[in-house]
Structure formats: structure tokens, C-alpha cells
């Protein structure tokens, strides 16, 4: 079957690529657009390492077909920082040592961003439930939650 032409917007920039009809959005991001920040952990929507924001919704990019992105807006980890200035979530993950191997980190950062986009002042419980679809085998999650809560507080300050 012939490849399909896909036009979409990734991190605010219009992009075009050719996709096999069965290709996932994750594979398109990584292999066609060289955006290798999103990771493939399980490939079945269980681990969250491939999390991206599609038209404002947090999704696993391994459970989205690349041609589905036609005309949509995709936000990936590559768009989180402003140039060389880290997003507060990224800064707090560093300060709280909320990562070890780092494989889950892009997914956790995008999931955390999606949380704070809709709920700037989450309780710890809300943050833990929201992030339950992102698996981390290194940190035990506690440092991640502390980083997210701290980043949320800082972002609320910035809005005042």
C-alpha cells in the first residue's frame, strides 16, 4: 500500500511527512521527523513513555496512527523548553532528582504539563492519579511527585 502524505503541526511548526498507513505517530515523530525525545517503552499504551499532547489531549503516541495527525496539533517534549530556557517542570525535575535513567522522563514531563494546563493547583492525590499511566522503574515516584507539586507552585507564582 502506498504511503500517505500527512500535514500536521508539531510544536507550533507546520510539518509534512510520508507515512505507511499502519505507522504510529510515535514512529513518525522519531523516524520521519527526527524528534526522538518521545520514547517507546511498551508499544501498547501501558507505560506512557511516548506521551504527547494531541489537540490538547494527553495521549500515547504509540496508540495513534500517524495519518490520524493530519490537520491536528501535536506537542512533544521537544517543544517544552523555550530555546535554552528550561520549562519549570524540567527545572524542578532536575532540582528534585526526579529521574535516574531518564527513559520515562519525556513522557512524565508531557503528562505533568497536560495536568497543569487543566489543573494549575492539583492535590498530591490528583497528581498521582493523573500520572498513574506513566511508569518509572527507577525513582519510586516520590521525587517525581515532589517536582510536579513544586513546579505547579512556581507556575502559579508566575501567573500572579
Amino acid at each position: 500500500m502506498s504511503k500517505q502524505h500527512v500535514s500536521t503541526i508539531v510544536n507550533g511548526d507546520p510539518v509534512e511527512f510520508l507515512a505507511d498507513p499502519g505507522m504510529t505517530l510515535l514512529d513518525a515523530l522519531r523516524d520521519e521527523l527526527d524528534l526522538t525525545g518521545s520514547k517507546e517503552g511498551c508499544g501498547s499504551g501501558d507505560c506512557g513513555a511516548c506521551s504527547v499532547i494531541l489537540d490538547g489531549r494527553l495521549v500515547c503516541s504509540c496508540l495513534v496512527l500517524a495519518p490520524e495527525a493530519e490537520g491536528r496539533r501535536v506537542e512533544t517534549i521537544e517543544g517544552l523548553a523555550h530555546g535554552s530556557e528550561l520549562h519549570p517542570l524540567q527545572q524542578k525535575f532536575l532540582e528534585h532528582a526526579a529521574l535516574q535513567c531518564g527513559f520515562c522522563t519525556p513522557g512524565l514531563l508531557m503528562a505533568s504539563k497536560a495536568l497543569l494546563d487543566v489543573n494549575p493547583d492539583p492535590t498530591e492525590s490528583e497528581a498521582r492519579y493523573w500520572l498513574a499511566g506513566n511508569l518509572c522503574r527507577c525513582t519510586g515516584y516520590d521525587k517525581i511527585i515532589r517536582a510536579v507539586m513544586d513546579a505547579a507552585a512556581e507556575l502559579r507564582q508566575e501567573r500572579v
Partner: protein
Amino acid sequence: MSQLDYLAPATADEAVKALGGAGARAMAGGTDLLVQLRAGRAKPNVIVDLKRIAGAVGIRQEAGAFIIGAATSGAAIGEHAALVKAWPGVVEATNLIGSTQVQGRATLAGNLCNASPAADSVPAMIAARAVCVIIGPGGRREAPVEAICTAPGRTSLAPGEFVLEIRLPARPARASDAYLRLIPRTEMDIAVVGAGVSLVLDGAGVITDAQVSLGAVAPTALLVADASLALVGSKLDEAALAKLDAAARDACRPISDKRGTAEYRTKIAGVLARRAAAIAYSRAGGQA
């Protein structure tokens, strides 16, 4: 992967044509289909994405009824305040499915047509007397949710047919519903047993209508008619609850697997039916 094509029709008619060929599969959220595709368990020639069809995404109200497009995500369902107020049981069942990421994609119609006996939203929809609007080569027809699944992984949909909408009926005053499931952990697991209950009360708190459905205790979700009979005419007193418990257990035809034995599932079905009934009763304004 051999010869796979992807189509995203803009109209229901185009979707019917695309689904008419051999090896075509409809896709709503894709959270089951893409996993099956990757595992080699599904080998479609064509994936027909329903999300670009007018009306397939979104929730609208008509004369008190809610019409939920087949490809509406669980997240959108959970954010719809009027729907949450009218059908809290259907919404809580839907929002139990998977993670935040899965909620961004997963749909009621997909959960139904994947035909897992343990699908969380299905008992809640059956209890709610939800109706599917089905589009196919023969035109449009309606069928109650309990008529869709025929066996694990199998549906009564004919070739070329797909579910375009799910309709939840208008609610009278003093009516509500609830869904409970048992899983061995707190998040993101498959139901060992699920129970959906929908009740309508009169001004004195007497149950005038009841619908009870169980999941994961038979090859398909069950509509338990005897459980409904146990409740109507009561104020959910202990005698009615005991009859409900017995009717729920009698209806079970479960398997034993790593999640639970048949005996355990049967016992739990009675317990969850009681508890879900109590929640629905309280939500409907009844004082137990």
C-alpha cells in the same frame, strides 16, 4: 505488515462503503485495535477511522436524552457537566478505563464493540438502557447495548455496519445510577466483576424502575432481569438487597482465571450489586 490501508471518511455513507470490503475494521479511539494490530491478533486490510464523520465526536442533548458520538473520548465524557449529573454511573464506568492517556482516546462505542466480557462501560450502559445507533448498508437501525456483544470478541454487527452514536434516555426526577468494579489494585486493571445499577424512585423513595447489569461473570455482560424485579416496589431495605444479591449470584456463569475463581466472582457479584444499588439509591435522593 501486509497491505494495510487507512481511510478517514467524512460521511457515514463513505464509512459504510469503506467497511463493506473484506478485512475492514472500524476504529474509534484505537486503544484496543492498535494493540491488537501490533500483537498480530488483528490483521485488517483497511482501518476505517470514524473520528472525521460528522456527529461521531461530541455530546449533544435532545429532549433530555444524551447522544454521545461513537468516537467521543472518555476524557470529554468526564468533562460534560450535564452528562455527569444525569448519568454519574455511566461516566464513572467510562472514566475507570485505563490511564489519563487512554482516556484521551478511548470511547464508549469502542469499549462496546471490542466485546470484552470485562468492559467497564458496558454494564453501566446496559443498566442505563443505552441504545446504539447503527449505520450500515441497509441504512440506519437502533439496538439496545445488550444486543451488541454475542461472545468474547464478537458482535452482532453485520459486515459494513458500525455504531455511530450511543443514546442515553432522558431522566425523570429522582433517578440515578452507579457502577462499581473489583480489581486487585487501585488503578488500571481489568474488572474481576463489574456491576451497574440504574434506579428511578417515586416521591416517597419507593423504587419504581430498576435495571441491573453485571460484567466479567459471563461471556458477555448480563442484563439481570430478576435483580430488577427484586428492587422494584422496595425502598432498598435489607429484604430487597438480599433478593438482589441472590439474583445477581444466580445469573453468574463465570470462568476461573488468574484474576479470580468462578466461586469468588459469583460471591462478589452479589456484593457489588448491593453496593452499587445503595449508591444509585442515595444519588437518586433516597434515604436508606
